[in-house]
């Protein structure tokens, strides 16, 4: 009969109307500035640079190898390598980024920089409230704004950070053990040991790893 | 009373003149609606409520709309390059003025026109209805018949005559304008669909059986 389907539909909407009061599960809306959905552990928004210890300038893991700059699909990373070197977490002298800029307005949050980084130096942040009245300067993040501590990394990605730390600790232990063994052996092999130290995972010299183009 | 009459009369007359003299036909139609509204107001002023409302309902609600529709359907809304009045417009105006003069002469010479306003009558709707259904029932029926005939006639006249207009409006699919670009050769049936599928797929046509004719009733 004509009208039957419409009445069925109206019963359905009435059920939803009542349901929205009796069953708050139906309301998926979150009233944003007051309530926030807790960030998922895997959530990603924009990259940041991890540093160990307290000093952002000294503890920065990035060695300015520029792999992420090359792999970045929208090319939003800009790196200038330093002239001098500073010791990394193992103690080996490495370059560090004199300039490390990420243009957040260009970044598309794809996480590829994180995946290709051999040094666990760049990670994804869950912070998304970056709106800014300055369209260009305000969204161009430099090294100082990007640098966040390892503790912060632990806070936002607990499982992942624990894995990363374990891996780095293992590598450090391995490297130290090797260095100790080598130091006990010969002074002449010391130079060779330095190159061998990081063979398993982090490449010894970034320039050799970067894909030649 | 006098003031109200003066205002209504002036408004009606101005809009009637505008309706007859403006270049843009849609403006003419809108002015016509104003003139009709003014006349309705005048009926109300003469204590003829029912007629006044009927005037609004029929003239503004229907006739003015019909005029507007006709203007749109005949694309007369655009301004015309030539003069809007005919070549013999002077004669037309002269005749109108003449008619007006004659009428005025007659009105002013008549003794009836000097009659003053009698007491306010109270024709109820019920009374009008009673009259219509008793003394005037034949005219009412005739009007009903006329309206029916007019409706049918108008529909038939204005009906789209494309179907009978014939050849000059028709183009075939091929000479059209690229409609044929995807038109399939006739006779392509499901068998062809199967063969196309087998070209792209890696399996043999046997793997694209026609779906079983198992019919599932949608209703659950």
């Amino acid at each position, binding site marked *: 009969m004509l009208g039957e389907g419409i009445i069925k539909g109206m019963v359905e909407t009435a059920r939803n109307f009542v349901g929205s009061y009796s069953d708050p599960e139906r309301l998926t809306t979150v009233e944003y500035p007051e309530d926030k959905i807790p960030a998922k552990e895997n959530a990603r928004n924009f990259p940041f640079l991890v540093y160990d210890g307290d000093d952002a300038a000294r503890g920065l893991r990035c060695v300015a190898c520029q792999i992420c700059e090359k792999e970045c699909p929208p090319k939003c990373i800009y790196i200038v390598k330093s002239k001098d070197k500073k010791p990394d977490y193992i103690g080996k002298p490495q370059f560090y980024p004199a300039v490390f800029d990420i243009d957040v307005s260009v970044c598309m949050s794809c996480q590829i920089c994180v995946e290709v980084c051999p040094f666990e130096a760049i990670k994804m942040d869950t912070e998304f409230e970056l709106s800014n009245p300055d369209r260009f300067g305000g969204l161009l993040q430099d090294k100082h704004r990007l640098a966040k501590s390892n503790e912060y990394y632990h806070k936002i990605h607990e499982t992942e950070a624990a894995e990363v730390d374990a891996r780095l600790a293992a590598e450090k232990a391995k490297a130290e053990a090797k260095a100790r063994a080598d130091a006990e052996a010969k002074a002449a092999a010391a130079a060779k040991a330095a190159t061998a130290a990081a063979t398993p995972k982090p490449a010894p010299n970034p320039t050799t790893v970067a894909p030649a183009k | 009373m006098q003031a109200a009459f003066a205002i209504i009369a002036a408004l009606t007359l101005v809009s009637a003149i505008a309706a007859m003299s403006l270049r843009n036909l849609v403006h003419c139609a809108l002015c016509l609606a104003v003139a009709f509204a003014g006349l309705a107001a005048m009926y109300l002023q003469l204590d003829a409520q029912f007629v006044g409302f009927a005037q609004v309902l029929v003239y503004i609600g229907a006739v003015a709309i019909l005029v507007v529709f006709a203007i749109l359907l005949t694309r007369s809304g655009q301004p015309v390059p030539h003069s809007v009045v005919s070549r013999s417009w002077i004669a037309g105006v002269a005749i109108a003025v003449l008619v007006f003069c004659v009428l005025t002469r007659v009105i002013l010479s008549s003794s009836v026109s000097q009659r003053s306003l009698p007491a306010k009558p109270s024709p109820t*709707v*019920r009374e009008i209805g009673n009259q219509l259904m008793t003394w005037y029932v034949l005219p009412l029926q005739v009007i009903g018949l006329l309206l029916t005939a007019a409706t049918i006639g108008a529909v038939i006249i204005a009906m789209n005559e494309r179907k009978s207009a014939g050849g000059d409006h028709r183009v075939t699919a091929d000479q059209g304008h690229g409609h044929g670009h995807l038109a399939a050769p006739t006779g392509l049936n499901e068998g062809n669909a199967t063969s196309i599928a087998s070209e792209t797929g890696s399996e043999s046509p046997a793997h694209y059986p026609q779906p079983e004719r198992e019919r599932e009733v949608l209703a659950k």
Partner: protein
Amino acid sequence: MIIGEFFRGLFLMIWRVATDQPEAKADLLAVFPPSARPVISAVLTVSPIIGIFATLFALTTLLERKGLGRIQNRLGPNRVGPFGILQPVADGLKMLTKEDIIPRSADALVHFLAPVVLAVPTILAFAVLPYGRNLVPVDMDAGILFFFAVGASTELAIFMAGWSSRNKYSLLGAMRAIAQMISYEIPLIISSVSVIMIAGSLSPVEIIAQQGRYLAGGFVPHWFVLTPWGLAGFIMFLIASLAESNRSPFDIPEAESELIAGHLTEYSGFKYALFFMAEYFGMFAVSGLAVTLFLGGWHAPFEFLEIVPSYVWFFAKLMGLVCLFIWVRGTVPRLRVDQLLNFAWKFMLPLSLLNLVVAAVWHFTAAWEFPGAGLGRWLLGAVMIGVPYVWLGRALSGSKKITQRTYRFAD
């Protein structure tokens, strides 16, 4: 002295209105010189109507947005004021402060006049509705005719809006609007004619007076909606009034997904607000007429509830219908133009004409005396309107071969 009299009159007026007493304005008018009285009286009548309906308009927009939100499992507006109550104020301020854009090629005068021409008749329509026992602005002998006459003149305003915008969508929307409004005016009028026939009057006051009785010990009101022809007429009146007020599923003139906003496309700011307001006013007016014709006007549903002031019932019924409109809007998709016209001409028109016959039969069977005559009458009327309903409904959908489809499944 005069001021004291004035306030006494004002107080008396409010008191008398609140307690359903007649001659509410008399004492207040006595304060003024006789020559000024007609004007003052008109102002005293018109301003509360406009004020109340403007408030109702604001509340309804909020109610609609809240209700639709809940139907859609959203929260609805809840930012401005507690529970979003001040949202209409914010909307109004936004509308008023927006730039008033007139397209360069538009016909500026007609473009300007259209919202005004639309707003005037919709407000005029409130003049003949009885809001309470002694609350009728103009007790007109041909009140219903007046209502339909002013209702008919809104079409021209919509055409003006659509044509003067010089926008193809606007023009299409205006053409659709006119076609729709003319088509649905006929079932609207004919379905109310059945009431006029039974009541024997075009006066809303008289029609309500005829519905003022109670049956079955004061628990069954003598409303026209409780008769077979009245129920059918009421439903048809509601459907037609949905179309008249351009509400979903008949919101074809401003079909958002097809014609952007139809005749409103080129309007902004205050003019748009006027259109919006006129649309809601039209909805109130036509719902008020439905209440008057079919739902017993300001009469209470049960006799013992007559002690509640009459206007409360009127506005309660009015808001009930408005909520129904909102509910329908939240459920159904939009019809297409030709289907809409088909529905009007091939379904609503024959059915409403038939309803006239049913009303006549009802009138003439009133003399039935045998036991169970009341029930028999009811059933006769119900069958007379129900069978053609089913048949016409089938014919209407049968032309498109609407069937329950089955689907094949391939493994």
